[in-house]
């Protein structure tokens, strides 16, 4: 499947900001079932500094800085991406026990290794009730890990209500789990925390969804904005597989990966630090259109 993707993020600073530094993670990744055909990132006003980097997890980063005062910021990313992501062999994956054991004894410490995604991180802390919730979803430790994680993905979709505006970016795992509603970020954090506490490596994915569904299929939740889902690690042979708890499905050819990390803090589209006395307003638009 080939897509034309357009992301526009805008910020308004009514009382002006200065000395601003930002890290952007808005470039779709190349690899892992997708190929980047073309990309352009336009930033206005023109930054005083702009450097392209790759972070520890292999995400493309635009490091920008503004030293003059500014009252707005706009980032437009346009890319063409082909996605060919065959469904993972969930039922043929190693058992939950085997996956946990392989992960614990991983000998790679590089960015793609599961060892970075087993413990707590800035926004992920174990929660006893959630650990138990996931454990009871996993009927037996001997079942294939892929099938077990799929069952959890569907259960979160069934048990949690999708309600934009009911949570914020600062909502914790404990809060989201208690109120059983939220948006993609909350479901992803809940699922990651539950999987890790049960020994299954899990990481956070930030990305896009196809905006309009193919004929005859329902529109997916979260298609108008940046989306988030979960990669679970299913052993050395299968590796990372994407699960979308917001929609209760595998991440397939409608999902385009932008950034991966331990949680939202590692993958957020714009991180920034600047000097200001006033508030800020932000908005973003996503358009993902199939072409050719």
């Amino acid at each position, binding site marked *: 499947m080939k897509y034309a993707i357009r992301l526009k*993020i805008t910020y308004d600073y009514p009382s002006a*900001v*200065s*000395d*601003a*530094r930002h*890290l952007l993670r808005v470039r779709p990744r190349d690899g892992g079932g997708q190929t980047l055909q073309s990309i352009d990132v336009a930033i206005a006003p023109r930054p005083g*500094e702009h*450097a392209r980097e790759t*972070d*520890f997890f292999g995400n493309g980063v635009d*490091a920008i*800085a503004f*030293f003059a005062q500014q009252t707005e910021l706009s980032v437009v990313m346009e890319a063409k991406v082909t996605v060919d992501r065959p469904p993972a062999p969930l039922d043929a994956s190693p058992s939950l026990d085997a996956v*946990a054991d392989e992960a*614990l*004894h*991983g*000998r*790679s*410490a*590089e*960015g793609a*290794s*599961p*060892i*970075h*995604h*087993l*413990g707590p991180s*800035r926004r992920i802390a174990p929660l006893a009730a959630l650990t138990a919730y996931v454990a009871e979803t996993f009927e037996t430790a001997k079942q294939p890990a892929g099938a077990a994680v799929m069952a959890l993905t569907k259960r979160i979709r069934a048990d949690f209500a999708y309600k*934009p505006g009911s949570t*914020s*970016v600062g909502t914790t795992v404990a809060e989201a789990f208690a109120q059983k509603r939220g*948006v993609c*970020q909350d479901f992803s954090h809940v699922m990651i925390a539950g999987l890790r506490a049960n*020994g299954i490596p899990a990481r956070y994915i*930030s990305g896009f969804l196809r905006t309009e569904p193919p004929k005859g299929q329902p529109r997916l*939740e*979260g298609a*108008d*904005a*940046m*989306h*988030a889902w979960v990669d679970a690690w299913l052993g050395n042979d299968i590796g990372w597989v994407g699960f979308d708890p917001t929609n209760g499905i595998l991440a397939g050819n409608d999902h385009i990966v932008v950034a991966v990390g331990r949680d939202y*803090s590692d993958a*957020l*589209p*714009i*991180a*920034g*630090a*600047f*000097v*200001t*006395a006033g508030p*800020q307003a*932000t*908005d*973003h638009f996503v358009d993902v259109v199939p072409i050719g």
Partner: protein
Amino acid sequence: MLSEPNLLRRYATLAAKGLDEMIAPDGKVRPHYAPLMAKLGTMPGAELARRFASSRQYLSEAGVFHQVYGEGSEQSHDWPLGHPALLIDRGEWAELSAGLVQRAGFLEALLADLYGERRVVASGVLPGILVGRNPEFLRPLADQARLGAPLLSFIAVDLGRGPDGRWWVLGDRTQAPSGAGFALENRVATSKAFPDVSRALNVERLAGFFRRFREMLFALGGPERARIGLLTPGPHNETYYEHAYLARYLGLLLLEGGDLVVHGDRAEVRTVDGFQPIRVLWRRLDADFCDPLELFGGSRIGTPGLARAVRSGALTLVNALGSGILETPALLAFQKPLAQALIGEDLKLPTIATWWCGQEKIRRFVEENAARLQLGPAFPGAPHFPVMGETATRPGAGDQTVPASTREGVTLVGQEIAALSTTPVWGQKGLEPRPVTLRAFLMRDEEGWHVMPGGFARVADSRDARVISMQRGGGSIDVWISSETAAKPVTLLGPKGDRFSRRLPGALPARAADNLFWLGRYAERGEVAARLLRLHAGRAGEGWSEGELETRIATILEDYGVEIDGGHPERGLLALARQAADTASRIRERFSPDAWRTLKDIVALILDAIAEKDGDVVGLTSAILTHHSGFAGLAHENMYRFTGWRFMQCGRALERGQATAATVSALLSEEPPAGALEALLTFTDSSVTYRRRYSVDLSEETVVDLAVLDPLNPRSLAFQVNTLAEVTSALPGVHLGETPDLLFRRLARLKVRLQTADAVEVDSAFLDRIVGDLALISDLLTQRYLLSSPRAAAEWSGGPE
């Protein structure tokens, strides 16, 4: 006092239960302690008391203190220094030093591997999970060792003597080891008490180690010998005193995260004279707080972009960001294979036995032996407050149980409970044996690693050796290693005959200038309030009935937060005095210790008065004013006349000018009440001058002339404005002949207005306008020189859906 044999007999009995530093198992004094005991044993009790007192006095005068956290407030406590020093035999020290140097090399190799090839993980020597789950493995710097620069240059190793008589490693301090400055202060204080003894024992000096350390820092900075900074979390940190002390001792800029800016890949210091490059920082701030953009986003004490500057190689941190990973307790369980893999040797120093519960066989061992082991976290904790007392045990341990699976076991270690040796410390009834740990310090230059010949020893306050922490009432003692020959004095001064040039100090960081400016303001504010209050109280004492004048003075005092009506005006004074003392404590490295103590004394004075409740306001305010003139004198006589001093003078002149204008305006507005003119003369301390200069009776015009317009009266408004104009003209970036900016235009205009005004024109409207002008001048000065930006972190708040 007991004579020597008695003194020893009593101590030997007390120390007999375990291993002691001074008394050998056969009950005899170890040879290297004999000369010390020979001297101490003959000193009468009164002499010892006098000697201890002189060391205490030094510490209190130098302002050595440590913060104790608790119940949401911070308190400064006297520095708990004990006597005598811990003596280490020089043969044993040589052996220990060799082990420490080897250990430092091992740690350096391990750190380079973890932030480089990570071969210890790939080859299976170290379980990868100890890296992957480690909060001190900093991913933005994961490849920093590939630059080739040393990641470790200054470390500490905590040691305890085990029952076998050897020194055991209890832990490594590599993040931002504290204690070296305290070791220095302990040395100075101990030498004050026992100068003759330390000379007689040829105690090795510490200055050579610090001199070498300073040379190393400058060498890292490159040939131009640019300024070196010490990066501190700021005044609220427990070891801030040490940071300020070391910055002053080593001639480093004391910097907070907000003082730094990253431009391109370079770090720069925000100074009153623009941005100045900096290449080397001795880091005393925990790594996670250093860069809110790439590390902990919630940090308000970091510098956005700092990690970039490090990655590019343009900025070197001592030690590297992420060096805290070496403090991981679980690493102690893999010492032997790690040392073999990295340096191909066994480590000379034994390490406290440690078992990591991430492996099933070992987890079971710990489970079965839990009763005789101490359980603790396997990973370094998120160290929001670096605590000095974490040596022997880690807080929170003891309530842990061994989990049933290795999956949870990865976060847990079991450690042997070490019985520490004891060392003699003077207590209530003479020498008492106290468990002791030793923190040794090492630094690295091109020649290799060097051990500081001494250290920082901590002693428990009881025989219970499981916790040694100054937070819980323990203390510290000096560490003496005697050398064969008389120690050559080494100081940080260059050798005689070195060519020198008198260099002006580097540009002043904007934050330091801001603190000096506010110190000037706050100190003056305290003085003005005391002056007004004395005026008020003095009139009451002279039997004047409460009238219009008193009401007006009370109204001015309210603006200073001093409430007369509640009957506790001292509380308002206390708040003002504290503001001044707190501001001064933030810039202690730039400030005369005597002047700082004067401000602390004012606080103490007011606290005493509040406690005594005798209500002698006149006595109190007079004493405060005496201290203030002492402070002003010290600032005037002892402070180097450079940029910092000028900002302090600006703050003082602005505050005094505003206070004078506001007071004259309030007392003389509309119908001046009876006694207003006399009160004004008293307030401006000008009664004597008045009688000399004016032969007439008091009149409004003459009093106004003296208090407002007379350029020779140091308390007049015109004098403050002239001072401001003079002092600001020497500030950085001011060039004669250039178009002056708004700040200088405003000042010049104000100066002329006061020069040309006639006393009859000076009414409340005139004065109120000047108060406004001075406020504007203060704002302009702040904008131009002092704004060290209040930083807001912004995050994407749109959120994915």
